[in-house]
């Protein structure tokens, strides 16, 4: 594979597609330098995204108190008013994150945030308080590139996850298994690497975990925390933190977590895949996510054809990447924010609202007829709106190459090339078709 195709692939996967400028810059500095630039950005500010004004939220305790008051007094109007405020906050929150992704100048950091949202799927449908979803999102952004054990602990003790997986309603003698099970199955170890007895024992260690509403933080209710020492993975534990240490440092996790990251960035693999063996040793040493990302990008198979054709763009990646490629500015996104959310819903992906703790599936999951219609509708509207001068200024004969450069598509198949050639007299039409081509949807 030609060097510039490799660097473009890297930029595309490490962020939200590759704009023509990003692709050119990466090609100029070479693959390894681009990896270092991307990975180095993980600890840096993001001038583009940080210019987006963060949303403002009401205090959770105030919402709780006023809503309780409204309900007790049977004040339907007040209840509806609070409900409207929370809905409005949720809309603002979603607009804000989409705007960040479109505006980012530090794309791997924002991409990692999105990846971790899919890894620790948590939904507003149950959490209900947008500021808690925002808080979790900031954990992914600020701590995601560090050690995975610390990240898991931070997420686990944050209100969004506590509410999502039913902390707070257990008793010392009667735990709720939900968090312990999903912690092992989905977040750290993977099904089949632990016993049911480990889940049930771990659930005791998490008893008494609570949201502290006043501080929107975490506390342990000692009266409801089981003092009994349990054995999890053969090791005696008494606290939830000990369980998180155990599971994140387990041999199974040393394969499960790298496999999950590889699956999001290259192509889907199981933890038993040989490529995971290449990643797991270094990862197990310190659970450092930055180093894991570097190792993934530097792995020879990351630029293999299996990888370059191995993922269908998730709807968020598709929409955000298209806006970036066509230079539709972030301000447009917040204006059209509502509509973008509707577009994403029609494709099956709403930020902050994954369908379950399993998160979103991959690849063929996104290739439904309904999603195809939603992509086409979006592409048609976007092409009509965007400044297409990079395509329009090219001669009709070279527009097929101009649109490939615009969207960072390395090569058109003969069938796509035929269709694009027929559309070359109309910049909006050729751009629309390129945006819905299999080569763009799948990379």
């Amino acid at each position: 594979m030609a060097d510039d195709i490799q660097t473009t692939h890297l930029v595309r996967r490490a962020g939200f597609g590759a704009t023509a400028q990003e692709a050119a810059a990466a090609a100029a500095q070479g693959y390894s330098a681009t990896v270092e630039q991307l990975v180095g950005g993980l600890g840096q500010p993001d001038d583009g995204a940080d210019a987006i004004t963060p949303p403002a939220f009401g205090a959770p305790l105030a919402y709780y108190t006023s809503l309780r008051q409204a309900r007790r007094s049977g004040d339907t109007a007040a209840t509806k008013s609070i409900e409207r405020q929370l809905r409005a906050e949720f809309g603002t929150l979603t607009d804000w994150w989409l705007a960040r992704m479109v505006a980012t100048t530090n794309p791997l950091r924002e991409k990692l945030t999105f990846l971790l949202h899919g890894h620790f799927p948590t939904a507003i449908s149950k959490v209900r308080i947008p500021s808690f979803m925002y808080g979790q999102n900031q954990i992914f952004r600020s701590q995601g590139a560090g050690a995975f054990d610390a990240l898991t602990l931070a997420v686990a003790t944050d209100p969004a996850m506590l509410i999502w997986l039913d902390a707070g309603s257990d008793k010392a003698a009667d735990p709720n298994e939900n968090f312990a099970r999903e912690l092992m199955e989905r977040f750290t170890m993977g099904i089949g690497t632990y016993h049911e007895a480990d889940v049930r024992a771990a659930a005791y260690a998490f008893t008494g975990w609570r949201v502290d509403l006043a501080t929107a933080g975490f506390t342990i209710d000692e009266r409801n925390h089981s003092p009994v020492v349990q054995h999890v993975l053969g090791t005696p534990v008494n606290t939830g933190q000990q369980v998180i240490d155990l599971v994140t440092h387990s041999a199974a996790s040393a394969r499960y977590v790298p496999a999950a990251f590889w699956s999001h960035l290259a192509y889907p693999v199981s933890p038993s895949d040989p490529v995971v063996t290449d990643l797991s040793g270094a990862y197990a040493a310190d659970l450092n996510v930055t180093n894991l990302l570097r190792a993934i990008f530097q792995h020879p198979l990351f630029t293999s054809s299996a990888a370059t054709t191995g993922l269908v763009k998730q709807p968020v990646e598709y929409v955000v990447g298209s806006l970036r490629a066509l230079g539709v500015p972030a301000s447009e996104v917040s204006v059209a924010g509502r509509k973008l959310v509707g577009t994403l819903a029609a494709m099956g992906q709403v930020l902050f609202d994954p369908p379950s703790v399993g998160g979103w599936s991959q690849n063929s999951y996104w290739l439904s007829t309904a999603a195809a219609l939603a992509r086409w509708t979006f592409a048609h509207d976007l092409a009509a709106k965007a400044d297409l001068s990079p395509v329009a200024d090219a001669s009709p004969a070279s527009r097929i190459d101009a649109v490939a450069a615009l969207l960072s598509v390395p090569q058109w198949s003969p069938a796509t090339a035929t269709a694009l050639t027929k559309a070359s007299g109309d910049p909006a039409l050729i751009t629309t078709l390129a945006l819905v081509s299999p080569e763009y949807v799948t990379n």
Partner: protein
Amino acid sequence: MHNDPTTHNDPTTHNDPTTHNDPTTPTTPATDAAATAATGTAGTATPTTAPHPEPAGDRRLDRRKFLTLAGGLGAAGLLAGTLGPHAWDVVFGGARDPRGSLGPAAGRRLVLVTLYGGNDGLNTVVPYENPAYAPSRGPLALDASTVLPLDEGYGLHPALTGFKKLWEQKRLAIVQGVGFADPNYSHFESMDIWQSGVPGSAASTGWIGRWLDGMGSSPLRAVGIGPTTPVVLQGDKVQGASLPPGPIRLPGDATEQSLYAGLAGTTRKEALLLADSARSGADLLTVDRRLGPILDRTATADPLHLAGSGTGGAASSEAAGALAIANGGGGLSTPGVLATQLSIVANLILARSPTQVYSVELGGFDTHTDQAATQQTLLAELDAGVTAFVDSLSDDPAGQDTVVLVYTEFGRRVTGNASAGSDHGWANVVFVAGHGVTGGWYGDPPSLSKLSDGNLVFTTDFRSVYATLFAEVLGVDPVPFLDGRFRTIPFV
């Protein structure tokens, strides 16, 4: 105890020795003992919250219930400034997971209703006269006086009033004790097993998807309502179509649509996902051509009489918008989301769509906390949707030939948890409804006294249900599509 001894004598599996295993074999027998031991030494727990009238699921939210507070908040609250999400649910209302070249069909029509999250079957079809029921369920047990009695000591959850009528009309079959060997409590593995029809493997195709592969190349033969396609409709070569709520409006003019066809319609050798992507575009055009006119024609039809029922309807843009978001990705659902999906299905059936299998869904059944109110709400939605759907087909031959299957990934633990909810369990009940269904009891009810690791043990292999649907509804030999031969059940 059931009426027909031939229907529930034994596990219905034959031929495949692996499915003959004693279903009572526990997978982790030591666990409960450990839990019990720990329980004995734990201190007396004082709940920081009151009983919770509204429950929480972990999928999607019913936005009309969003922030709805049920009564009885009581002492819930800001005890010592500390608040469990449990109390949170009380104030903010329970989350739910709403989730929802063919000639004339050779067989009958099949509608799959998938309940995500694991519906508590023991409180759905309730053995309320069984002396072990109330003690073993504890606070979760439904009051016998509220259960809708069927016979033989069983009754339906009070929300299932329409199902009760279907039962009396002999249009409702209840298969008890359905499951598979070596269940593992995972939502995702369990649902994959149910949708793939292959236990213990990571099959990537659905049981209907393999049938699609075997029947040709049409995406119209099986159709889901919603933005994404569930595994059950995914084959190797063919994927069942998915429909947006409401009419299909292709963008662009005739030129654009013709060029889109050129993009989408070509067979490619390059890569599998490229070919799948191209296929989804080609399938979209097929859907538009064949089903688009029906969807246009029926855009204002309301076969389930949802208008005025407070649940929107297929014709309601509000409900359509909610449905777009409810399926597959979002949680912004409204009550009636299942009925709205079923309304689209009814329109397609009544208009003679060539489709033989439909898929709709309802989420929110993962009731780890505050189960009573959540299950009440969700079962009421299931009841209203399915009942109105069956009624809407009464006067139509194709409608009368339609069979509805209602299933979920697993049942729940017999004994509840301290959160007024229940954790993941094993065997469950399956409903089969429709005009051509032979109503009654099928399958042996699992024993309440011989639990395995606290769970109901399956007595009927779930593939027996599928084998029956293949043979009797879709009119094909089940063997090519299931891994083994399974006894059919005479419910249809």
